[in-house]
Each structure stands twice: as structure tokens, then as C-alpha cells.
């Protein structure tokens, strides 16, 4: 069941360093919200707070009304910037980690992940070890690992940042329908304007540290159709320019 994520008056600081200031953000069930901002603006910290791996210095985060850390941890699947594939497990065993942790037997968990492998164009690579996979494939395995958890909220922390431009474009096209199909509520952290515009229903632009929300835009997620067409349309160009302008205005001295 997709869930509402709501942050109210969220503040966070590391010692005397303010990272997030007075953040209000709500993501509706099934919505994909992109958090766009310069490096170091606290986007990643925000995700870790949302998924219950850290507690905020002030304010609250609730998921489907539950504000406890344990409740958020249970509701969210977090995908860190690095793929974090465990080198001692095959691609399929890596993807099957969540159901394994949830108590399924190894063969049941593998069977569940294997469906996604087929579905998402990774069949034939089930028994490959992580170091045998390309960067793009590793990232796909990490996505599947996150999706297979079956959690209502997915938190993606710059999932494509480590990839080359071509693979990134390819995976954006791959990921958009995958997320739509999952029906999950998604928070996507990125500093890539095009990625935010193409993948998200809504784009929230954060200022440089300490991060606060400076603007919100509607994304092109609903546009449908081929990625190349979408991102070269006049309306997307306008969105891209707007996003860039807002980002640069925040960074400028």
C-alpha cells in the first residue's frame, strides 16, 4: 500500500553546522518527488532521516501517520548512492536480500527476485558476481533489490550519479515505468536537472547548505512517451531552464 510521507518543520544540524532548515514536504501516495539541490545541501541527510536511520534535531517526519523511527524504517527501502552490492553474493542473491531478511527461505527469496530479473531485462545474469557486472547493470540489481523489498516508500539517493551520461539516460528511461509500476511513493534525490524533470511528478529545489525549500515545479513524469522525445520537447526545455535558473540563483553569491 503506497503511503503519504510528510515532513513538518524539519531541522537538522551536525553540532553547530545547520544542514536542514524548516523543511515542509509532503509526498502523496504513489507520487514521485525529486529533491534537487547542489552538493552538500542536506538532501542525503533528509533521506536518512525519512527512512529512520537518523533522527532529526527538530520537527517531525511521518509515514502513513507513523512518526516512530522503527515505523519509518519498516515503511522505507533506502537505496544509497553507491550500489552497495555485497561482493560475496551473486546478482540474484543480492537482489533477494530483503525477502531473505524478512524471513523467506533462500529459494523462496531468490524466486521472488528472479521474477524481477526477467521482467527488468537482467535474465541470464542471475548467477553473475557483482564484479562481473557493468556499472549500469549493478545499478539495476540495486534497484531490483530495493523494489523487491515490497515497501510502500522508496528513497533513492542519487541513484544514477555514478554512471556515464549514456547509461544514465538509458536507466532513466528504464526506471520511469519501473517506478510507475511499483506504485510506491518515491523520494528521489538528485543534482541532475534532466533526471529530476523527467522522472518526477514534482520537483522540490533546495538551497545550498543549510538546505531549505526555495521553489517547487511540476515534473514531466506524466508526459509519457519516449524519453528522447520528452526531454527535447519545448515544454521540457522551459522546465529545464527554470530549474537551472533557480538552482544557480541559490548558488550565486
Amino acid at each position, binding site marked *: 500500500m503506497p503511503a503519504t510521507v510528510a515532513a513538518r518543520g524539519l531541522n537538522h544540524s551536525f553540532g553547530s553546522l545547520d544542514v536542514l532548515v524548516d523543511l515542509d514536504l509532503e509526498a502523496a501516495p504513489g507520487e514521485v518527488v525529486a529533491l534537487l539541490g547542489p552538493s552538500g545541501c542536506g538532501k542525503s541527510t533528509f533521506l536518512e532521516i525519512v527512512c529512520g536511520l537518523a533522527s532529526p534535531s527538530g520537527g517531525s517526519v511521518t509515514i502513513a501517520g507513523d512518526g516512530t523511527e522503527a515505523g519509518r524504517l519498516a515503511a522505507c527501502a533506502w537505496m*544509497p548512492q553507491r550500489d552497495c552490492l*555485497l561482493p560475496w553474493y551473486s546478482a540474484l542473491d543480492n537482489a533477494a536480500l530483503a525477502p*531473505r*531478511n524478512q524471513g523467506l527461505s533462500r529459494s523462496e527469496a531468490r524466486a521472488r527476485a528472479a521474477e524481477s530479473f526477467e521482467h527488468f531485462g537482467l535474465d541470464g545474469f542471475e548467477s553473475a558476481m557483482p564484479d562481473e557486472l557493468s556499472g549500469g547493470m549493478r545499478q539495476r540489481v540495486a534497484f531490483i533489490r530495493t523494489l523487491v523489498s515490497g515497501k510502500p516508500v522508496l*528513497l533513492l539517493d542519487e541513484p544514477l550519479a555514478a554512471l556515464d551520461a549514456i547509461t544514465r539516460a538509458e536507466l532513466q528511461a528504464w526506471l520511469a515505468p519501473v517506478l510507475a509500476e511499483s506504485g510506491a511513493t518515491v523520494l528521489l534525490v538528485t543534482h541532475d536537472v534532466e533526471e529530476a524533470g523527467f522522472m518526477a511528478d514534482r520537483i522540490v529545489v533546495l538551497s545550498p547548505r543549510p538546505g531549505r525549500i526555495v521553489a517547487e515545479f511540476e515534473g514531466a513524469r506524466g508526459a509519457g512517451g519516449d524519453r528522447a522525445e520528452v526531454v527535447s520537447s519545448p515544454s521540457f526545455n522551459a522546465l529545464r531552464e527554470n530549474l537551472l535558473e533557480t538552482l544557480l540563483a541559490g548558488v550565486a553569491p
Partner: protein
Amino acid sequence: MKARTWLPPLVLLALLCGLWQVAASSGFMADVLGLESFLVPSPSEIADVLWTDRVLILQNAVPTLVEILAGFGLALAAGLGVAVLFRGSDLVRRAGYPLVVASQTIPVIVIAPILVVWFGYGIWPKLLIIALICFFPIAVNTLDGLRSTDPEAVRMMRSLDASRAQVFRRVEVPTALPSVFTGARIAAAVAVIGAVFGEWAGSEEGLGHLILQDNAQLMTARMFASVFVLSVIAIGLYALIALLERAIVRWR
């Protein structure tokens, strides 16, 4: 195994033995050292004794091997146990770490006779001495391995519903395994020294015991034969661990 793996050490060993053979059998070494030639045995003489006294040497090698294996096993259990305990609690680690280091400063030669007084001439004092020597490299390496766990991978696992035990089993243990094997290999090499010290302090059998007797009777060739067998035991144990490592740590 490829020839490139075993050929270089074999060639080096053959070369050194050849040099030694020439130096010893020509009387050169005895002259230089100003000794009777029977005190400076050549490799061929050692090999000769190794064969003629094979029963005696084997009879003494077996108890030594048993001591080494048991002492090593004890150290492995204790070392892994302490490392896991230290990983589990920062307080326990801070409290206990100095003691682990202190265990390594105990002069084994001095403590061995005391252990014999306490535990008698049986296997226990040897076992404890071997375990004492082997414990440190195993414990320290295992702890380092556990502590090198990627914290991001741990958080990823927690977000995928892993319990503390599941994180330990699926992330921390595999991360630590290569270090565990490194510690075990170091321990295997020094275990033999512990066995000899233990037997010197008081025993009725074993290669260390035999060496002590042969030393008193100036039977140098058989002494070297015993040392040779001790080396074979150490290298064998080391190789066994390396083989296990290759079979288990496949991802490296």
C-alpha cells in the same frame, strides 16, 4: 598448482641445500667454525638420519602435531570469540583490548615452566602456550576485519529489514573472513614455536623433547631432522589454511 607457484621456492631451497651440502661435506664449514665435523651435519646426513630414525621421529612428531592442532583450535575459538565480543560492545572492547595486547607481552619461555608446575607434564601446558601465542594474531586480525565493515552497506541492510544478527551474518562475517584467514596463517606459522617451548619446559615426548635430548647428546643431524619435520608441519598447516581461504573467500 601451476609450476610458476611451486617452482621458485623449490629451486631456491635446492640451491641453498646444495651450497650447504658442499660447505658441510667438504669440511669447510667445520673448519671455519673451528668445530668437529660431526657437529656440522650436511643435508645428506640429515636426510639419512631422517630415514633411519623415521619411527622415532614420527613417534615424537605425532604428539607435537596433536598439541599444535589442539592449541591452534583453542586459540581460534578464543580469538574469534573475543573479536566478536569486542565488536558487539564498544565498552567491552575498550576495557578488554589492553588485556589482549598484554597477553602478547607474556614471555612464553618464562611462563612455560610455571604452567608445567600448575598443570603437570601432560598436554595442557603445551596447549595453553600454543594458544597464548596464536590467540593474538587471530583476535586482532578478526577484530580489524569486523570493524572494516562498510557502514553504508549496514544501513542499506537495516533499511531492508535486516536484524542485528542478519547484518552480522550477511555483511560483517564475510567482510571479516579474509582478515580471519590472515590471522590464522600467521598463527599457524608461530604455533610450532609454542609447541617446542612447551615441550622444553617439561615433557616426555614430542619433537621439542627429542631436540632437547639430541642437543644434550650432540646428535646434531637428528636435531636438524626434527627441525625439518617441524617446518613441514608449519608449512603444511599454513598451506591448508591458504587452501581453505581460496575455497571460501571466492569473491577476492
